[in-house]
């Protein structure tokens, strides 16, 4: 049995008929074709699938698309606005915050949420909020530096 799900993703409303068991990450990637969010461990351990559901980050492998019905989702595709990168994205460029890039969407969406709530986080606060996200290139040092760069350059969209 399918159900009608209507979700506003990055400001655009999408309606799809989906099975209730469909996970949000597959809805975003396979139904909508937004492949910026990555499907990683499938067990809510790695965090590469983090998106915002309404205004709160969630591991999209552990929430049903049905639960997002009538709500809004923000993905990594929405960070860049009018051709200008978000300071978090610029920070990852400046500080080499990614190597393979697999964990990057989750890292960036989590970092943007942190900075919206706490514009000047200490390194320990950055490490804490990212503690549920895995980088297998072991780039944590540079990821933390990237988030700090974004905190220090809040107005720099490039």
């Amino acid at each position, binding site marked *: 049995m399918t159900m009608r799900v209507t979700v506003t993703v990055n400001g655009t409303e999408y309606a799809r008929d989906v099975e209730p068991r469909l*996970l949000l990450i597959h809805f975003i990637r396979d139904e909508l074709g937004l492949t910026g969010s990555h499907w990683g461990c499938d067990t809510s351990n790695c965090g590469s699938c983090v998106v915002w559901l309404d205004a709160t*980050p969630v591991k999209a492998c*552990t929430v*049903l698309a049905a*639960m997002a019905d009538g709500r809004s989702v923000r993905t990594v595709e929405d960070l860049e606005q009018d051709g200008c990168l978000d300071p978090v994205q610029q920070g990852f460029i400046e500080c080499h915050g990614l190597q393979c890039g697999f964990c990057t969407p989750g890292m960036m969406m989590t970092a943007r949420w942190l900075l919206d709530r706490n514009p000047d986080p200490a390194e320990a606060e950055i490490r804490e909020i990212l*503690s*549920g*996200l895995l980088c297998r290139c072991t780039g944590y040092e540079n990821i933390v530096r990237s988030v700090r760069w974004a905190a220090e350059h809040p107005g720099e969209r490039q």
Partner: protein
Amino acid sequence: MQVPSHVEYERATSVEHALALLGRPEHRVLAGGHSLIPMMKLRLAQPGVLVDINGLAELSYIKLDGAELRIGALARHADLLDSAVAGQHFPIFHDAERVVADPIVRLWGTIGGSLCQADPSEDLSAVFAAVRATAVIRSQHGDREVPVREFHLGPYETVIGPGELLAEIRMPAHPGTGSAYEKIARRVGDWSVAAAGAVLRLDKGTVKQAGIGLTAVAAEHFVAAEAEDYLRGKPATEQNFGQAAKIAAKHCHPVPDQRGPEDYKRHLVAELTTRALRRAAARAGAPA
């Protein structure tokens, strides 16, 4: 690829609506989903119909009501960690919530869901047992109250029956009480190898009431009852804490697994119980 098996979905629009839906067989509560959805992926849970209660804002609160702290079942882990009133009266909650899963999972996982999951390694079950909390279970016939120490029937099994919903967890906030939680895990976000929670109510340096909860070591109802009995009425001293911790370690039933052998887990229980009692006493105002 892990995908749940076929399931139907209903969204509850009110507590009454949820209770009506839950009266039917095959219906199961979906709150944060951070335990249930992984269980469904592994086919350890195969509900026929999910009843999504995430919209029920009336079940999402943390407040002091007279001398009682009341936590709505839909409050999230992050809400409890952020709650100043909860931390003031029960610092054990903030100790525990810092080590439950990870910060993103804590934004979605619910307090009620943790209790109802009844995982033997779940931190909050031991915490609520230590503080002697009461579960308020709602049905169309009204509310019933069950002490958390009688809430779990065994692994993944609780007293909640068809047509019932955990609505609230409440506990008395006594003055002169201190509490703490100590956990050892292999890495951030992991389950406990072992953990201990302690609640002490002191009167002039004497233990008036003690609560000791143990996580992941198969303590009956998550409680170290013999150690609590030992401490009651005794001076809150390091020596008595050490003896109570030994009793706690002796009376639990840890199972050797990939997280460690039995003797190591008993060692952890003794050490973590001592540390939790020490910090609880300090927070209750006992001289160091």
